[in-house]
């Protein structure tokens, strides 16, 4: 064998690019799925839309919740929700998520309620392959009533006064079967970067997920050579391909949530969506009008074709 023939026999690096529907084909009903972003910020909505048009059901969502929770609940896709909050917005413009509220109040979904810091710890424990992480968070609150599996532990080390060890909460690891995150830029191999103000917990969601279930969508896929320039700085390359099984190029894929600095939240669209909780007719109309396109490209084309005053 000549030297040049041996070279051509080297394996090619993995190309992990997939379509939304190819990602969903790798998911199964009953899975525990982490969703990245938070509230109405950088949510992997093109993947959520692909779930909505699939026959997946009985999903357990783990999320810093935004409109994806309400949409998937309203469509009957969710059987369990692990959450600290579900809010399309916070601050002075804070509103509650009506579809999520309806699902919770009707008893349609089971819930595991946590403090938002416990969600961080649970994902971190799973990522580090330890069964729990100790924390003071939760002591004294009613979290035990809504999260009965939550256990306390006694520290094996002396307490602050040198006596018995203090009692803490043991936040269990939150192992995910799959996770879906949306970032600004990535390459075909699964490296990705956030270019906005906050990574949120996207890297942890991916690291807490079983091999084979870790998916990112990105606004743009660029050659690896161009990744640092596209991200702006190496410190923004926070998702590595060690923890990514599939990459979807999804321009405007977070719509209607924000994807800072690429685009802001579509306030008018979100308002329309939130208004559909008032009656089933409105939801059905919205769902058939916006959430039932055969492909993401059709959805994006319909958005682009909206009259200017509604765009």
């Amino acid at each position, binding site marked *: 064998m000549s030297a040049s023939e041996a070279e051509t026999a080297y394996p090619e690096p993995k190309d992990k690019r997939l379509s939304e529907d190819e990602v969903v084909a790798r998911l199964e009903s009953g899975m525990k799925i982490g969703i990245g972003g938070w509230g109405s910020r950088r949510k992997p909505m093109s993947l959520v839309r692909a779930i909505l048009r699939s026959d997946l059901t009985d999903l357990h969502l783990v999320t810093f919740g935004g409109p994806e929770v309400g949409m998937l609940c309203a469509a009957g896709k969710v059987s369990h929700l692990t959450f600290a909050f579900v809010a399309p917005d916070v601050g002075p413009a804070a509103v509650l998520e009506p579809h999520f509220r309806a699902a919770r109040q009707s008893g349609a979904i089971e819930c595991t309620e946590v403090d938002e810091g416990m969600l961080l710890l649970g994902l971190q424990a799973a990522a580090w392959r330890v069964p729990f992480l100790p924390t003071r968070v939760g002591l004294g609150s009613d979290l035990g*009533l809504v999260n009965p599996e939550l256990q306390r532990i006694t520290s094996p080390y002396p307490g602050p006064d040198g006596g018995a060890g203090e009692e803490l909460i043991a936040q269990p690891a939150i192992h995910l079967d799959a996770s879906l995150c949306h970032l600004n830029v990535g390459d075909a191999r699964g490296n990705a970067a956030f270019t906005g103000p906050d990574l949120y917990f996207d890297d942890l969601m991916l690291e807490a997920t079983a091999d084979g279930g870790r998916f990112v969508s990105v606004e743009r896929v660029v050659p690896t050579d161009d990744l640092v320039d596209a991200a702006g700085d190496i410190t923004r390359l926070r998702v590595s391909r060690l923890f990514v099984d599939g990459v979807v190029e999804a321009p405007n894929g977070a719509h209607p949530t924000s994807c800072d600095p690429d685009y802001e939240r579509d306030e008018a669209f979100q308002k329309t969506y939130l208004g559909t909780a008032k009656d089933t007719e409105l939801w059905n109309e919205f769902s058939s009008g916006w959430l039932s396109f055969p492909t993401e490209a059709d959805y994006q084309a319909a958005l682009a074709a909206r009259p200017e005053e509604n765009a």
Partner: protein
Amino acid sequence: MSATDLSSLVRRADVCAVAVADCFRGDGEILANPIGTIPMIGGRLARATWEPDLMMTDGEAALIANDQAVPAKADRVYETWNPYRRMFDVVWSGRRHVMMGATQVDRFGNQNIAALGGTPTRPRTQLLGFRGAPGNTINDTTSYWVPAHGPKVFVEAVDVVTGVGYDRAVELGGDGGRFHEIRRVVSNLGVFDFDTPNHSMQLRTVHPGVTVDEVVEATGFSLVVPADVEQTRLPTPDELRLLDEVIDPQGTRFREVPDPA
């Protein structure tokens, strides 16, 4: 002009902002993290005056030096990057005083922002969720802001304990509750603290134009009322100038707490 005349000229939202600012007095170099319109304005006022070392958020992912309550992005003076995850490092370090809202609050300062009625696993009315309230209250000094004081907010017992009150903290014993402090509750009617033998909420001051009876009637539990209840202090001329010209020139505070009719 008599003191009574002066107090009839003062605007309620300004009194509230100053009362919020006074909650942070003595805090030094910590993260002052007031959440909401008037809380943010009051926090900025404390830093612009007697607590210059406080750090404060932009409401997003940074700590900024601006005095203006909500400066435009281009105008923000950044001190440090404080993304969501970094906030837990601050919260769990104890270097923070948070002021949260409360859908319900009881006499021991237990707070509820999660749900109303029904059962814990199937509430009649689902609200936001626990958010960060358990972790905030067990790790850091906490105060509360209630813009519309009434008996449905100040309740005998909250439906769900999201933020931990004094009775719960005492039950935990010395270790678990050692970082717990509910410092004040500020409402549109008055200022409250827990400086009583069993940490039951007491009326500290009433805002100008509000009577003690009004506060008692608007409170759904038996409030500790000292023999002499003073009026909440008025803003100084310099504080008013800062509020009007620097911190909240748009007057957003008057929309959150309008002047009494």
